[in-house]
């Protein structure tokens, strides 16, 4: 991503990392790619939970994404942001707990490995894209 960033953003108030209208991030990259299936599933889960289950409103998803720091916001793809926000909201709303999720993440890694898929990297962190043992394991 081009980082021809306008000063406006650095002087803006907090929680406005998403508010980019009028800034300049450079030329538009027109390359397109089909969504991966996991991305389609994130999209589907959010729509089902927001519409059919009333677990949260889409506005709450946006609020979580807007609370990401600039580094996290710029470094993650669209569905990475939504996937992470989905996790945070499900915990916030008490639908799942952090402990349950930590256990399930370990299982999911094993399931994928046993299906011959390597798993890259650490679990998605809870804050700012910086690994922090305390916040990740609490």
């Amino acid at each position: 991503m081009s980082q021809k960033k306008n000063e406006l953003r650095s002087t803006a108030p907090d929680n406005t990392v998403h508010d980019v209208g009028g800034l300049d991030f450079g030329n538009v990259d027109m390359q397109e790619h089909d969504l991966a299936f996991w991305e389609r599933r994130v999209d589907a889960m959010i729509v089902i939970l927001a519409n059919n289950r009333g677990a949260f409103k889409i506005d709450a998803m946006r609020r979580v994404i807007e609370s990401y720091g600039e580094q996290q916001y710029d470094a993650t793809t669209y569905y990475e942001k939504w996937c992470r926000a989905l996790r945070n909201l499900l915990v916030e709303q008490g639908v799942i707990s952090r402990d349950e999720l930590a256990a399930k993440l370990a299982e999911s890694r094993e399931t994928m490995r046993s299906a011959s898929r390597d798993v890259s990297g650490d679990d998605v962190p809870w804050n700012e894209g910086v690994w922090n043992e305390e916040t990740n394991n609490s």
Partner: protein
Amino acid sequence: MHDHHDHDLTFQADHDTGPASPYEVLEHAIRELLVEKGVLTNAEISEHIDKMATRNETLGAKVTARAWTDPEFKQRYLNDTRAALASMDIDIGDMAEYRVVENTPRIHNVIICTLCSCYPKLLLGYPPSWYKSVTYRSRTVREPRAVLQEFGVELPDGVEVRVHDSTADLRYIVLPMQPEETTDWPAEKLMAKISRDSLIGTSIPT
């Protein structure tokens, strides 16, 4: 209730290949937990994905070609978009209302969402990557003509650019102008002239 087609969504080996990213693992874990807890089912997820596969550029072209060839439908499409789409069996759900903005010889409309990436998904499907990019979102409100030029759209002098920032509960769709030489064409032939981008405003049918 959905057990008539309970797809196994654990892996889609043809598509999700290569190393799994931490986000893909997270998606898997969240989904397994939600299914275990009975919050949702894999079948519901499959159904939603199947439905989204029917919402795409072709559907947008079909609706637009109808508006070009059926004046009564065009009025309804402009005045009550939800009802017009429903009359073609396109349900836009209750996440948002849809509005159509019509290009004229004097006005060219462009759609954008500066704050996130609001898009008429239930007509056109998932938005393209560039629509969600900070480059498109940041610059289109301030220098729309420069952005349009990058898309190969040169507007003649005297044509006003009208940018629509989808900040709230409305999703916008452009109704492009029908190319003059296609005046007598049937709707099916017209569809080939209508691209997804022309319904966002970053292309003009020729």
